[in-house]
């Protein structure tokens, strides 16, 4: 029996180790050891005031920070029964989509693409394929600058507060940005076409797929949770009833199941569940790609992220137009501090994130629970790794390892998030 390990897998957010136990060329077991240190966010927020919570939970993740901020605010607003204006919601959506642009561009170009062009990192592309490198930076930068325009900076937004925004962007800047987003659609299309051209293994994940859905849109900011194969749709407030977490000795992150079955969340789940809700260009491009109507090949999560880039550019152009035309206010609403419990759920770039809190009469938090997308995905990733490893076990060592790393990277893991 021999053990192959890839310690601190490169080009993923956080620290994880792939372990494969082999008996000759027969794969006996495969694990994803999550060595990312535990940080204890849930006990940490107990005893802190309601208006500090989004500042704290934003620090779960430097990549998904806009999503954690928005989700945290929504959960507390739910607990204290605070409605926000449509304008506030539009700005929050821009913030979430800004992190989609930033994250998807980073994951696709900096983390994933080097695997498919045989490079250790994206940096050599600056010399060999300057057009591709510049496109990567252009999309990533637009995402960062959208977050900065709305939130004040790319990581850990400043202006998003309980009930609204502490400050709105200058309308002239919003107008300039709208044009820039419209112009970015072609770059996103080129990204989707490039990833569609990369050869991926034939593979079908055994797990279910979960994502937020809405009747009238591509759910990202709000919605119910739906399961693709189990076929149900349930309010997010019940998330504890449809997601079960379990602790395993090899992982500082818990694993999740739904109805006893592992599942995947993220771009591929969203595209499967809401493909009819995509913006026109995104829908048109998706139809031209090698993505099935119900797609279970995990490797195609990359292509689905690229399709979401197109959708995000089109959708944010529309949101900017609405913000410029419709008026209204995002000034934080007045509210009374009161006791309560609440749940918030949002689609982070890599899947649904759930926050729930209980708050006492004095506005101090008495309990909290957070489930991040990567924590939900880890069980399914291991199931995929166990199914995929034997199919490539006869390849030379380097190619075998690269194959496993490609699968791991396709999940766009965020191990910091997973061990919060």
């Amino acid at each position, binding site marked *: 029996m021999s053990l192959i390990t890839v310690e*601190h897998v*490169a*080009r993923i*957010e*956080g*620290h994880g180790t792939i372990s494969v136990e082999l008996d000759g060329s027969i794969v006996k077991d495969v694990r994803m050891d999550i060595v*990312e*240190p*535990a*940080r*204890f966010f*849930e*006990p*940490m927020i*107990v*005893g*802190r005031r309601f208006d*500090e919570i989004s*500042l*704290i939970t934003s*620090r*779960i*993740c*430097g*990549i998904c*920070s806009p999503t954690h901020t928005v989700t945290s605010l929504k959960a507390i607003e739910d607990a204290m029964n605070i409605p926000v204006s449509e304008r506030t919601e539009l700005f929050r959506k821009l913030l979430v989509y800004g992190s989609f642009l930033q994250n998807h561009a*980073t994951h696709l170009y*900096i983390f994933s693409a*080097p695997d498919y062009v045989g490079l*250790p*990192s*994206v*940096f050599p592309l*600056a010399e060999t394929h300057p057009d591709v490198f510049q496109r990567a*930076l252009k999309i*990533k*930068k637009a995402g*960062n600058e959208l977050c900065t325009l709305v939130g*004040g*900076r*790319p*990581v*850990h937004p*400043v*202006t998003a*507060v309980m009930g609204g925004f*502490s*400050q709105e962007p200058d309308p002239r800047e919003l107008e300039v940005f709208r044009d820039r987003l419209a112009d970015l659609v072609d770059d996103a299309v080129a990204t989707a076409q490039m990833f569609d051209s990369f050869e991926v293994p034939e593979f079908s994940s055994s797990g279910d797929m979960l994502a937020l859905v809405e009747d009238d849109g591509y759910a990202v900011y709000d919605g119910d949770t739906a399961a693709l194969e189990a076929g149900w749709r349930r309010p997010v407030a019940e998330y504890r009833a449809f997601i079960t977490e*379990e*602790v*395993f*000795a090899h*992982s*500082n992150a*818990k694993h999740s199941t739904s109805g006893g079955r592992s599942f995947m969340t993220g771009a591929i789940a969203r595209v499967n569940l809401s493909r009819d809700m995509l913006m026109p260009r995104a829908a048109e491009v998706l139809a031209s790609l090698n993505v099935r109507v119900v797609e279970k090949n995990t490797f195609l999560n990359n292509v689905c992220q690229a399709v979401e880039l197109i959708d995000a550019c089109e959708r944010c152009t529309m949101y900017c137009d609405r913000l410029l035309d419709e008026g209204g206010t995002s000034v934080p609403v007045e509210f009374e501090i009161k006791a309560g419990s609440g749940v918030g759920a949002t689609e982070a770039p890599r899947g649904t994130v759930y926050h729930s809190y209980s708050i006492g009469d004095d506005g101090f938090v008495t309990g909290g629970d957070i489930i991040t997308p990567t924590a939900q995905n880890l069980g399914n990733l291991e199931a995929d790794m166990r199914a995929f490893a034997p199919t490539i076990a006869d390849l030379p060592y380097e190619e075998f390892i690269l194959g496993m790393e490609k699968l791991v990277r396709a999940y766009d893991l965020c191990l*910091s998030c997973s*061990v919060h």
Partner: protein
Amino acid sequence: MAPRVVIVGLASDFGCQVQMTNIEDDLLDVLGLIDLQYWQLASSGHMPEEYDIAIVEGAVTTQEHVELLKRLRKTAAVVMTIGSCADTGGILALANCVDPDVAYAAVYGKGPEVARGRRAPGPVDAVIHVDYRVPGCPIDTDEFINVLSRALQGLADRTPVDPLCAICKTKENVCFLDRGEVCLGLVTRTGCGAKCPTLNRPCTGCRGLAPDANLEAARAAFVSKGLDPTELERRFDLYNAAREVTR
């Protein structure tokens, strides 16, 4: 020969490393000045035996981190920390306010034991000497480029020592204390351009205690504005709860 650089993450949200990738316009210029030998976030490869500069993100939360830092200090001529977690223990040090067994049980329950080798979260300089620091949560990219340039040229560390009120005044922001709201600008290390107050949010102290701050005067200012002076300490814990541990 360009200095050999390694970038290492301890316990963190990776936000400051993400900020390093966010210097898109200057990324290639910066990379051109250094010989980047190891960066797990961005490139395949292993940590080399020899290097000149170690850039460290994250708080120290495990025994492994302590050993890694000692190795880095022995090998690197220059150690530079980025972000609040590495600089003050940051948000993660808030876990010090909770009984560790209670915290563990709240997250992991009674199942198999995980997260072994844990220790109370603290800053890097509680373990090894730090030559240059970029404070803040997250780091400001311009400040990062500035500090890195100073490190490359061997210039003295110039981390600001004043509180940020002075710079906030030059931005013509209306003082939060005058509006009856708690703001930590009187005691927090400057260098951020008073970003949060300029975006109409009070300072939350992410850059740590300004060495030149006058805490007594700050408490008196709170009282004179009708604010509870104990809120100064309580709020300051947000990014600085490790200060009790390390002193």
